[in-house]
């Protein structure tokens, strides 16, 4: 899973700490495709951009566990139940690497969690759409994890070492998730009429939100964008979205599914599938908190966190007791 690009414009003008000797050395390293590591110098804006992006990504992983988690007990076969559990487990694992990567930038997991639960931190708005049918378990894997991969593969080459390394494993697992999602949809499309309809109905609901995961249009030219100069963002939202559409449309057609877009058409000249307008007012409504499940997702997270408070407190107290036992008493 991946948090969508929210088009937070990174500052265009260079800050003071980017122009000094350390700032120049930092940029030279990036230009030479070397990694920036936690104890290296980095401009404050670079740190802030990464903190926001990595923590949003981590938040998306844990919130993303909820729409799928609510289907574990209803999965139609034992094999599907096991695969779904393993997928969600992977996602919690992604959140762990990502929070760890974010911690190397100087903010603890607890602080990040606070920002998500009680602050204004964002997560991918795709998870504010409800997962209503078993078909959605297929579609989410196929489209949502599929869109995530488009976004994340370039992040394996991100200039920040801990993020790039975490992303290598994340991408391997996401790619597996996408295939298992497509496999679910494939079986539905080759099943009964009711199953095929389940797959089509699910695609109808998730197609446009999946396209909007890439964020609002930002053209194709990223020159001058700090995230691009810092080699955090390598491709524009529009470029990645087009790649996703080009990869996914033939997959849908192979299954006999119809993409819910009246103007979708293959463009011989560009070799792209041209597609219709997205509903950006819906997108911004969901980001503002007005999606079908924004309130539910957060209330489940908050409840889980607060229900677990006594457990976390007890482990801390127990650990302190053990440490006190091991500390030799000062000689009288």
């Amino acid at each position, binding site marked *: 899973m991946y948090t969508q690009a929210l088009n937070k414009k990174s500052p265009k003008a260079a800050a003071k700490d980017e122009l000094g000797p350390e700032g120049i050395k930092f940029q030279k390293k990036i230009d030479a495709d070397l990694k920036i590591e936690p104890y290296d110098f980095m401009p404050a804006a670079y740190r802030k951009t990464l903190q926001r992006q990595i923590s949003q990504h981590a938040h998306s992983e*844990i919130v993303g*566990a*909820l729409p799928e*988690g609510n289907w*574990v*007990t*209803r*999965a*139609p*076969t*034992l*094999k*599907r*139940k*096991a695969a779904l*559990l*393993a997928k*969600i*487990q992977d996602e*919690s*694992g992604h*959140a*762990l690497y990502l*929070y760890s990567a974010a911690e190397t930038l100087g903010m603890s*997991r607890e602080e990040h969690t606070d920002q998500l639960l009680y602050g204004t931190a964002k997560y991918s708005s795709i998870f504010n759409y409800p997962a209503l049918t*078993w078909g959605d378990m297929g579609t989410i894997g196929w489209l949502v994890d599929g869109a995530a991969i488009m976004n994340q593969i370039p992040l394996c080459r991100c200039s920040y070492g801990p993020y790039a390394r975490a992303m290598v494993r994340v991408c391997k697992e996401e790619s597996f998730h996408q295939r298992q999602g497509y496999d*679910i949809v494939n*079986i539905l499309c*080759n*099943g*009964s009429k*009711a*199953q095929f309809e389940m797959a089509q109905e699910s695609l109808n609901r998730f197609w446009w939100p999946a396209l909007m995961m890439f964020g609002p249009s930002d053209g194709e030219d990223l020159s001058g964008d700090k995230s691009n100069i810092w080699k955090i963002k390598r491709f524009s939202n529009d470029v990645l979205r087009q790649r996703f559409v080009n990869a996914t449309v033939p997959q849908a057609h192979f299954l006999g599914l119809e993409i819910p877009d009246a103007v979708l058409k293959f463009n011989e000249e560009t070799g792209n599938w041209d597609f219709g307008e997205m509903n950006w007012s819906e997108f911004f409504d969901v980001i503002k908190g007005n999606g079908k499940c924004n309130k539910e997702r957060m209330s*489940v997270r908050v*409840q*889980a*966190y607060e*229900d*677990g*408070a*006594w*457990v*976390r*407190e*007890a*482990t801390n*107290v*127990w650990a302190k*007791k053990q440490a006190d036992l091991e500390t030799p008493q000062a000689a009288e």
Partner: protein
Amino acid sequence: MTNENLYKYLIRMADNSLIFGHRISEWTGKCPTLEEDIALSNFALDFVGQSRSLYTYAAAIEGKGRDEDQLAYVKLLHDYKNILLLEQPNGDFGYTIMRAFIYSTFMHKFWLKMLNSKDETLAAIAAKSEKEAAYHVRHSAEWVIRLGDGTQESHNRMQTAADEIWRFTAEMFETDEIEMALIADGVAIDPKEIQDEWLSYIQEIFEMATLTLNQDVFMQTGGRSGQHSEYLGYILCELQWVQLTYPNSKW
């Protein structure tokens, strides 16, 4: 069926794993920490996996061409033979962990014994499950110790959980004529043979956890013969929903 006793024995074990896996999977995404979320999903995966091996073997013994899913999903409430302990709601994290500890301690010793079963398939399932159960015991026992001897609140919650759970423990040690016949053949194991070591390990961990074992309770049983608590019906509403709404479909 050539071996009806073995079939029934396998279904009992498979239903236990299925229902317990179901309960634990309800925690996915909602645990007190991210690490524990991953750990409890692992528990659920292990139990679902064990149930698959057991149902698949049961289906082969039955010889009617049914598969693991038909044995797991397509049956009436009274045909589920899991013990009552495992269908009880999760309660708080303390209840969940205490139950996992008490049950896993039993299952670890159970699978160790089962390694010597004359039935090769059961012995092979035991070889895999024993390793998983060893981890379940280690993980849950560490939690019992920390929460029992953590804060006053965590201690109280763990003590309450132990007191609530104990009344369901006798059912783990029940045997009937089906099992007695299989025990005589060297296929099944007699759970009474592991009862003492099970109890003494629980006492050992309770001592470290500063918890008291209150054994003087009225024992509730019945799940093994299909006499369940009201909770199982709700589990089945979720478990069977898709299968029963779209019968005879491939998923």
